[in-house]
């Protein structure tokens, strides 16, 4: 039962049109939440009750921010304020993916569209909320499948390259061994230093040749088949955060999302960068499971030609010797897991022309991961 309808009946204001509209709206499968200019919930549809786990009576009259996880919760009133002051539309009539929070503290991604109506001398905002958890799951699975598929076809290609590469590497290696064998023999027979030095120099050249072959292989592996588009990094970060926090009980984690309004558009493979972010955020949440203070900081900073994205936690932190090789494959601080997540993150960031690093957190303990993306895309 909607509070709105109650209010109409009680005030005697309700006319047929309103009542009919109301009953029509009740049939909409999306949750509908109406708020006033102060952000106070005016009505809460039945679908909203099912979606959020609150009864309408529990939420009507309270601030709508209670339906949002921490970073949004704190900022929502400023969004409304800014809109009322400037008329600048961030969400009204646009619709975007944001995280929402259920009564039990779990978060889930929703697509929110907001409409605005003039009503009895004031303004009301009507939010239509569509739970996209399932869609996200499907999308994620699809992404996984696409990645796997791309990987499989690359593995196949790598297999085909294998024999060529073996040959290309075998030649310089054979030469290195023969030059060094010659150098040994020359030393045995007390030949001149110059002759020995010449052998060693030639072996070095061949080692460099082998290195170049490996470099070529690396470029091949790093190339990938990715599609890059100009994306708003803030939006990508925001969506990835919503995605990463799906199902993660809030566990008393305070999330601070600080998005630099000056952050530019960047040419990226959105899915890949989101994979990096989701990985970093999940790691951060995991790192704080034993901590007394649990603060997750996610921020973007526009810099000179680059944008820096950082994810910080107040977990136990990482010792410097582990930090030094953290991005290598198979180095993990977790009991389970292969520890290839961060090495993949690094490959992705580097293939975008950026870099990823880790630093101890600003305060006591904790860790900050940050990566850069060049604003004008990777250099060819």
């Amino acid at each position, binding site marked *: 039962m909607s509070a709105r309808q109650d209010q109409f009946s009680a005030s005697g204001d309700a006319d047929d049109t309103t009542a009919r509209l109301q009953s029509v709206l009740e049939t909409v499968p999306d949750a509908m939440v109406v708020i006033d200019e102060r952000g106070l919930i005016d009505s809460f549809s039945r679908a909203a009750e099912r979606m959020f786990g609150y009864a309408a009576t529990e939420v009507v009259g309270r601030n709508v921010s209670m339906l949002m996880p921490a970073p949004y919760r704190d900022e929502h009133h400023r969004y409304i304020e800014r809109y009322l002051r400037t008329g600048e539309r961030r969400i009204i009539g646009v619709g975007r993916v944001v995280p929402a929070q259920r009564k039990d503290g779990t978060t889930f991604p929703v697509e929110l569209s907001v409409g605005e109506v003039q009503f009895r001398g004031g303004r009301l905002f009507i939010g239509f909320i569509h739970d996209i958890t399932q869609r996200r799951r499907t999308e994620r699975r699809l992404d996984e499948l696409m990645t796997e598929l791309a990987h499989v076809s690359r593995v196949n290609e790598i297999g085909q390259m294998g024999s060529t590469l*073996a*040959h290309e590497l*075998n*030649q*310089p*290696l*054979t*030469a*290195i*061994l*023969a*030059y*060094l*064998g*010659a*150098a*040994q*023999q*020359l030393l045995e*027979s007390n*030949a001149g230093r110059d002759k020995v030095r010449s*052998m060693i120099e*030639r*072996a070095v*050249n*061949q080692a460099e*040749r082998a290195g170049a072959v490996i470099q070529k292989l690396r470029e091949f592996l790093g190339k990938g088949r990715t599609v890059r588009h100009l994306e708003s990094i803030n939006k990508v970060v925001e969506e990835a955060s919503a995605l990463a926090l799906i199902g993660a009980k809030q566990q008393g984690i305070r999330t601070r999302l600080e998005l630099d309004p000056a952050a530019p558009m960047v040419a990226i493979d959105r899915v890949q960068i989101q994979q990096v972010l989701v990985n970093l955020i999940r790691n951060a949440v995991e790192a704080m499971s034993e901590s007394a203070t649990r603060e997750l900081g996610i921020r973007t900073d526009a810099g000179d030609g680059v944008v820096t994205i950082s994810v910080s936690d107040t977990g136990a932190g990482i010792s410097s010797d582990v930090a030094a090789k953290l991005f290598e494959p198979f180095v993990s601080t977790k009991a389970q897991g292969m520890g290839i997540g961060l090495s993949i993150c690094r490959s992705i960031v580097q293939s975008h022309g950026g870099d990823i690093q880790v630093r101890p957190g600003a305060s006591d303990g904790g860790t900050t991961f940050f990566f850069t993306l060049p604003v004008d895309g990777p250099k060819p």
Partner: protein
Amino acid sequence: MDQDIYIVDDDEAVRDSLRALFEAHGFAVHDFASGSDFLKHHAPDMHGCLVLDVNLPGIDGFEVLRALAATGSRLPVIIMTARTDGRTSAHAIEAGAIGFVQKPFVSSQLMDLVRSALQATQC
């Protein structure tokens, strides 16, 4: 006594390094970038040892072996290859090679093979 070593490999660095290795051991070295180059140079009374790559442009190492067999050559041949399967080595021996090394190899391995090949033919 300078014994002759014939090297056939299409890779310049491999030829140069093997030449250096064998010269350091006191051999007289002749190298060729292709099988047909070597066959042009080949004479039935050739002595020494042939170190022959399998993977060659134009005619490959096995064809060189067959061509040599057809002339009744008694020049011992050691086959070099990057291929890792056992079939290649068996094939090389069947085709008349006296020894087989898989690239990359340590120098002593090849030297030992060459020395025993030379002794065997001298007896």
